[in-house]
């Protein structure tokens, strides 16, 4: 037991629990839905997870610093529409230009958020609630209520969602999924192995201390928002590729889904704890739930949101109850220092 505790951190345990939950859920649905494990189903889920996961990575960076980014839905919609519009006007734009354009646009919008939060001293929930509306409004204004139509987009873009890196039988491993996984790996490594990543944790862990520490905490929070915006911009491009038809309401509600993925994935809204793989698992869990509920013929599609909301709540509740128990256990048994520990809820010390 002690060895196990040494090799597994609470964060990792949490990821095992999520994997277990996902498997359990898939098993339960497979008993209810005929031909549940179809390749088509896998492909559909993997594509929609890919988009949410990319947004959720950015959201994770922001939430780790004890902030939140509610504007990502609008950024996804904005960049999807804007890039789509450029492509409609000029079918000859190169893929690299287009992706870069989407990412830069997202980074710009994220930068505005970050500027207001880090240097303007405005709480992130206020800033991003505001820009959620503002970015969407600008989109509506510049669009003149026109829609980007699939028919006007270049071939390569329309083929993108169906292009594979490799496939096993009918199971396709799509390029977009590859991009998302690459992003997951890159950012997981950044969080674990760079000083930038560790300082994101430090800031969320104790913002007061971070202010007086020997690193530029404001700039770091600022860049977290830029990255969140840039990733949302990338997701916007993926959104365009996947759906083709883009209206001004594109991406509406993605902010909720990304926050849900992050929260279910174990990233504490008080900052400081959580991992990128956790966020990915959160995104997978929510998407499987969503798609499976749609397919579950015995309930109407109208039940989907209701159950989804309830299950997110249950997941978080289970997490807060179970994980706090486990953490306590871990902390108690981890005491092997002369200076000692107060245990878990040591009331003799209050560290703010």
């Amino acid at each position, binding site marked *: 037991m002690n060895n196990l505790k040494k090799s597994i951190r609470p964060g990792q345990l949490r990821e095992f629990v999520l994997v277990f939950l996902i498997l359990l859920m898939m098993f339960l649905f497979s008993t209810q839905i005929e031909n549940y494990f179809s390749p088509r189903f896998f492909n559909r889920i993997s594509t929609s997870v890919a988009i949410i996961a990319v947004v959720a990575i950015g959201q994770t960076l922001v939430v780790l610093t004890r902030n939140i980014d509610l504007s990502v839905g609008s950024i996804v919609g904005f960049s999807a529409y804007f890039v789509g519009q450029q492509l409609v006007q000029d079918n000859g734009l190169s893929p690299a230009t287009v992706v870069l354009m989407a990412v830069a646009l997202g980074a710009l919008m994220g930068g505005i958020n970050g500027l207001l939060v880090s240097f303007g001293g405005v709480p992130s929930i206020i800033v991003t609630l505001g820009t959620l509306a503002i970015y969407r409004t600008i989109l509506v204004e510049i669009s003149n209520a026109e829609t980007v139509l699939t028919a006007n987009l270049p071939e390569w873009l329309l083929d993108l969602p169906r292009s594979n890196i490799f496939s096993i039988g009918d199971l396709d491993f799509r390029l977009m999924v590859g991009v998302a996984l690459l992003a997951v790996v890159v950012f997981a490594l950044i969080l674990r192995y760079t*000083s930038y990543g560790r300082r994101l944790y430090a800031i969320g862990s104790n913002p007061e201390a971070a202010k007086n520490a020997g690193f530029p905490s404001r700039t770091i929070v600022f860049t977290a928002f830029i990255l969140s915006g840039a990733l949302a911009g990338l997701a916007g491009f993926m959104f365009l590729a996947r759906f083709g038809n883009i209206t001004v309401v594109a991406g509406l509600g993605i902010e909720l889904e990304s926050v849900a993925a992050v929260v279910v994935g174990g990233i504490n809204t008080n900052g400081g704890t959580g991992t990128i793989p956790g966020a990915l698992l959160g995104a997978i869990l929510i998407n499987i739930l969503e798609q499976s509920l749609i397919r579950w013929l015995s309930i109407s599609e109208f039940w989907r949101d209701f159950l989804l909301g309830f299950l997110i709540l249950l997941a978080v509740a289970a997490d807060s109850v179970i994980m706090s128990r486990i953490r306590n256990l871990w902390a108690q048994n*981890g005491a092997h220092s002369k200076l000692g520990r107060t245990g878990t809820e040591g009331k003799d010390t209050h560290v703010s």
Partner: protein
Amino acid sequence: MTKPIFQMEHISKRFGATQALADVSFELYPGEVHALIGENGAGKSTLIKIMTGIYQPDQGDISLDGQPIRVNNAQDAQTRGIAAIFQEPMVFPDLNVAENIFINHRDFGPVVKWGKMYAEAEDILAELDILLDVRQPARGLTLAAQQAVEIAKAISLDVRILIMDEPTASLSLHEVAQLFKLVQRLREQGVSILFIGHRLEEVFEISDRITVLRDGKWVSTMPRSEVTTEGIIRDMVGREVGTFFEKTSVPSDDLLISTRNLSKEGAFSGISFDLHRGEVLGFAGLVGSRRTDVGLALFGIDPADSGQIIFQGEEQKIQSPEQAMSAGIAYMSEDRRQLGLSMPMSIATNITLPTLKKYLTSWGLVKRQAEDKTAEKFRESLTIRTPSIETLVEDLSGGNQQKVMLSKWLNANPKLLILDEPTRGVDVGAKADVHRLVDELAASGLAIIVISSDLPEVLAMSDRILVMREGRQMGILTREEANQETVMNAAMGQAAQTVREE
């Protein structure tokens, strides 16, 4: 004597209408421990914040190694080898010990080499003789351990000037001894230490020279060998203060509360004591001995899960603060800022907080006049120094805040008053006021529990002392039996046979 490493000359700093520092000068020599003392509001914190670059002085010069410098911000201070450790350590709870040591480093590098970092952290801790697992997260470390981490952090930064702002305020005697050993080692390495403290015994024990500030002005700087307790206190307060507290109250034999085998899983077990009206029972023990948990259980914040509380002859199951309050138990928290007082609210509001019901009309509206009357009464009787009872609590000094907190609970007319660290972070004058007040309350028939890490205080105030160690009751000492040695022995779990079990 060698040349000073660090000098401040004619430093002044003003905040709005308050002159926080006026023409203050002092210097630090290599390898000296220089104590900086003064009452709250004397300007110590401002001075430190100027040294560490958090504030800029309005006037005056700072020089390092004889060269004039400007400390622009915290990073700047760090580059110049100036670091500070605060009363509440600034650790990052979600990072592990090694990361906490290195997170501030400029040469932390863009990429974290975990293996190398762990190894270096272990080296630093070993050098300082600190036993901590470098992989363990900082969350859950004791305050003492967190301070050790901060010291290790400073050492790793090749610090030349270490500022310690009341580092002992939350430590037990044993931990203070450990800390002082560390300070000694740093001094031998040539580090200059600026030590800010409230407990004079400690200041005398550790420092080479002592500087006193009062009302933002420099009063005196003297070698330790030349100072006396009376002289220092006179310098601090600006008048003569009786240093010795004489206990006058005598316990009655009217039993108020008994506990039998009171226990809470994971916190404490087997707490049994009797407490009479007019009696002061001290709770002593090291930090981590769970004294506060017993207080919280009696007050119903974190109820005990087994054992009995017999209050006025009847067994009480106390499950919430409300139940405790209606029985007549009050608990004054050790943590004024987080748990004790609503800082951005007025004195009057805070005083009536637990008893607001008494000030409501039948429609549930607050009777402001009655409320103000109560607040004025306590302002007078406890000599709370404030322009008005409408003043916000956050604008008061620590001592006056403590008095507001006392008023808040006295107004509830408790039969049992639990005081947790009643003089923590309180200056000498206010401390004497609090001691006298507790004595008066006991004399008027209140039963009082005093939880305190300040051993001389517990010894002076208590009729009997309950000593705890790691959640267990080690024994109860009578006033005659109790002295520094017997209490410490019990608290460290040694020589239990000398302690009479009750």
